[in-house]
């Protein structure tokens, strides 16, 4: 999955400084209201309730944990491709490690953070009861035999019908990137 050229482009977009050439505003969702409108319309188009629920969890996570502290570009990059049945959601926020370390100080590495995010009910927004989003996403992806690539920092997860696997990456993603094949 990680050899895909579009994935390389989005990794570069997230890892590097933003400039006019690297940034396509057509795919930028700046506010939560824009995300809701986009997903309302996409449901009408695709009629797949679980897909919209997964996209909602991934996209809203970015707003939940980065509002007021975006590194530069506010909101999420969201691109849907019905021909190749692929969805990309990315943000230039603070990433899993910085978010979760506040409530789980035992987190040392990006790998620690991504494993906890996908397997434990823990949220960066303590004392609010949150932290189920990525578990839900993982469960649906496995059940539907979809594929998910999710990277934050220098660690990524691949989720598929056989479960979750975690890997180290050369690229350092400051925010989060999710690529879903459905």
């Amino acid at each position, binding site marked *: 999955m990680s050899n895909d050229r579009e994935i390389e482009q989005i990794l570069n977009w997230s890892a590097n400084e933003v400039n006019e050439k690297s940034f396509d505003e057509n795919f930028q969702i700046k506010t939560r209201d824009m995300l809701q409108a986009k997903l309302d319309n996409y*449901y009408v188009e695709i009629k797949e309730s679980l897909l919209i629920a997964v996209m909602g969890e991934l996209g809203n996570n970015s707003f939940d944990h980065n509002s007021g502290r975006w590194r530069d570009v506010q909101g999420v990059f969201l691109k849907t491709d019905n021909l190749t049945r692929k969805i990309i959601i990315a943000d230039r926020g603070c990433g899993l490690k910085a978010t979760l370390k506040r409530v789980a100080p035992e987190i040392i590495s990006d790998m620690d953070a991504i494993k906890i995010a996908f397997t434990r009910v823990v949220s960066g927004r303590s004392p609010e009861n949150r932290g189920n989003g990525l578990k839900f996403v993982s469960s649906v992806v496995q059940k539907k035999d979809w594929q998910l690539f999710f990277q934050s920092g220098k660690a990524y997860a691949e989720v598929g019908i056989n479960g979750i696997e975690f890997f180290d990456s050369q690229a350092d993603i400051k925010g989060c990137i999710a690529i879903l094949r459905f």
Partner: protein
Amino acid sequence: MIIELKKFGNVLLSRPAGRDAFLSAKAYLLPNTADESFIIDFSGVDVLSPSWADEFISGLRELYGNKNITFKNTSNPSVEETLKIVNNEQGAKK
């Protein structure tokens, strides 16, 4: 009493929207007595996410208790999967 979730929208996704729906229900729909029983009717809901449901259903459970709430018309796949997650979380909190 029956709470028809479709009256809050058909694509129910974010935590702020779920929280707002709960606060609106609390202000205008819900009774003052804690022993009231509820049926949450999901008919007409096309998409439900755990974030929205957690804010709304957890709010109801805090006010009225778990045993007073039942669900109806839950066959939508996103409703089914979301209720599994939300109900598991409630079990873990006990």
